[in-house]
């Protein structure tokens, strides 16, 4: 039986490869968006934490999760919950590293924010709102590069 061979770990391994369409360098797991994974006789149930309420990527993400799990051949249900608020602290160490490599500073107190390009601590907030709801805009006077950071939520 297929259900017997599908474990929670296998589901999580698949989710770890589902990207956020607005931050494709990281996965929904590294961003801390997965609240729970349940594997039972009835199939797989994945509960997702929305990052921002108006985020248009959410529907895409829910669809990608469904598509990624469908090949397992068991019923898949993907839900969202607000029971636990998503916060930027939920982003994993691996997720923070991947963001920084892509030139996006991981969430940090404004005083500790470092330039993802040259690691300078002298950075300037340019705009608390950015190209997506989860990002703000900054400037580094040392390497003279503008950069984005994940907003602290």
């Amino acid at each position, binding site marked *: 039986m297929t259900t017997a061979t599908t474990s929670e770990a296998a589901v999580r391994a698949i989710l770890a490869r589902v990207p956020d369409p607005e931050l494709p360098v990281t996965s929904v797991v590294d961003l801390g968006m997965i609240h729970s994974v349940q594997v039972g006789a009835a199939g797989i149930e994945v509960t997702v934490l929305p990052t*921002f309420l108006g985020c248009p990527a959410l529907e895409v993400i829910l669809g990608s999760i469904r598509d990624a799990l469908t090949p397992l051949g068991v019923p898949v249900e993907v839900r969202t919950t*607000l029971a636990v608020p998503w916060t930027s602290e939920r982003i994993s160490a691996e997720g923070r590293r991947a963001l920084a490599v892509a030139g996006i500073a991981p969430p940090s107190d404004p005083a500790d924010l470092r330039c993802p390009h040259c690691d300078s601590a002298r950075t300037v907030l340019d*705009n608390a709102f950015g190209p997506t709801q989860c990002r703000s805009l900054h400037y580094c006077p040392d390497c003279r590069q503008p950069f984005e950071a994940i907003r602290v939520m």
Partner: protein
Amino acid sequence: VLLSMADDEAVLGWTDSEWTGIAPLLEEDVAMSSLAQDELGHAQALYGLLAFLPGGADPDAIAYDREPADYRHARLLDHGRGDWAMTIARRFLYETADAVRLDALATGSWTPLAELVGKIAREERYHRMHIGAWLTRLAEARGEPRDRLLGALEVLGPDAGTVFTPLPGESALVEAGILAAPMAELETRWRAALEPDLRRLDLPLPPPTADRVSGRTAHGSAFADLHAAYTSVRRSDPGATW
């Protein structure tokens, strides 16, 4: 209470989205678009909660298919986009009121709403910081910026308190522990919350609310135009999906 909050957020979001592309600074283009997107996200989630209630309809139908007279947003949000000072004054008055209202719902006994309110409040904190900074900037600039801000506060002032127009059935909500206090009490809290900033900047407090009855039902004329604009795509092909 759900419909009034959802309509407030939707109408404000649609109004401010008009700044996309034409805000006074590129940064504000991005910021105001993001703020508007947040408000529409909040409205969508609130319409979604409404849809679950007995007699609930499809959230999109609630958002787009009503006649202008059936919307329940506060008349404070009914003055058209206006200039930048109007935008900042309206948002300052509204965001402060919204914070008081969210506070009164955050510990409510209906879990789905209390959870949603917690999530909305986290996002709105950034809005208040941003708008507060602009209010200070306009108020402290001598000459035209301050004059325009004073003009906007004068126009909006009489309608500012319409956010707290008593709701039909609000005493039942208070009794059920969903809403912490009646709207009249929330209005008092809101006036107290406005005072420190307005006093510091030597700006006038809004006058007492003249209309305590029809503040959410008798809409301003600007709303008819806004309604025609934001429903136009849906009306062009009813029932279309994409």
